[in-house]
């Protein structure tokens, strides 16, 4: 059995340690918000956080995640109210939506490490997340908006 902590909940799964984390998340645990796009770390649809860092779960083996803290799109916030989620909603960023759990998880690392990102910072953080619908201009806009919301949230506290 392999023990994982996902979205602050403990799970124990019977899986081959070589199994991609994405398989375990979707097929064994039932957290299907994380998407499968390419399976070879090329598209970003499967990004989750491993101890706070963005990792591509399609190439991350369950053995790397064992005993570690994983956060998926389902656990990004308690009430779908992460500043990025609010901004995404406000701007209606998604088209088909398939890439966006990965986009959001990548953007969340950016905003945590750089609360006031420039366009260049956004490019540096997001260049590995592909959107076949081409929602890039809205993604950029929404990250800037989320940065403002996050700032306001912090000032309010």
């Amino acid at each position, binding site marked *: 059995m392999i023990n994982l902590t996902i979205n602050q909940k403990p799970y124990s799964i019977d899986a081959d340690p070589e199994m991609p984390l994405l398989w375990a998340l979707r097929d064994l645990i039932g957290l299907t918000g994380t998407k499968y796009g390419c399976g*070879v*770390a*090329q598209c970003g649809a499967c990004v989750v956080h491993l101890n706070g*860092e*963005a*990792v591509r779960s399609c190439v991350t083996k369950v053995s790397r995640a064992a005993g570690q803290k994983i956060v998926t799109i389902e656990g990004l916030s308690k009430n779908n109210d992460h500043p990025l989620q609010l901004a995404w909603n406000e701007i209606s960023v998604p088209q088909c939506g398939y890439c966006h759990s990965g986009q959001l*998880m990548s953007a969340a690392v*950016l905003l945590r*490490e750089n609360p006031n990102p420039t366009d260049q910072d956004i490019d540096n*953080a997001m260049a590995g997340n592909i959107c076949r619908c081409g929602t890039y201009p809205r993604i950029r806009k929404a990250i800037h908006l989320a940065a403002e919301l996050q700032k306001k949230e912090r000032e309010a506290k």
Partner: protein
Amino acid sequence: MIMSIILTMVGLMAFAWHTGNRKEILSSPVVVPIKKDSIASVKAFEKVYRVLMSPRCMNCHPSGDIPLQGDDSHLHEMFPKRGKDGKGLFAMKCGSCHQPSNTPGKHSPPGNPEWHLPPADMKMVFQGKTAAELAKQLIDPKQNGNKSMKQLLAHSEDGLVRWGWQPGEGRTLPPMSHAEFKKAWETWLNNGAYAPKSKP
């Protein structure tokens, strides 16, 4: 008679093993004796240079801040950036895709626990360097990551260096075996670490 030949051979082998043992050299309290032989040194560096400029080594020693990729050393897809520590930026850190070991299959990310570029304050560029420039850079602690001669000697056994010879599917190996590279590396350094003459 036969016995004495065998005993002599065993004795010689033991001696050869003893003097060739790297640990022995590294743990020795005295400075590694350097016998200066510029011809042997420069000749060995020709081999070293061929390995260092091969894609498996040079791709992570780019002249810019984006690593290179593939046997043709093109800019890494998605343009991940070096970052301060050489491990990438934000959601584009090396470890996002590069695992502790190679991911199976062509065009999937190669891996090593230490996967990174040289850090921003010590870029250790190989790309575009002549043999003369690279030789001088490699032995200058201000440009080689503060490595002493002893640390340089040991560097041929570094895990990430060794990865070059286990690069995973679809990647060409450096132009000689690791053992041959190591021998050339040590011959170059132990004979005075001479730089080839710069071409006019």
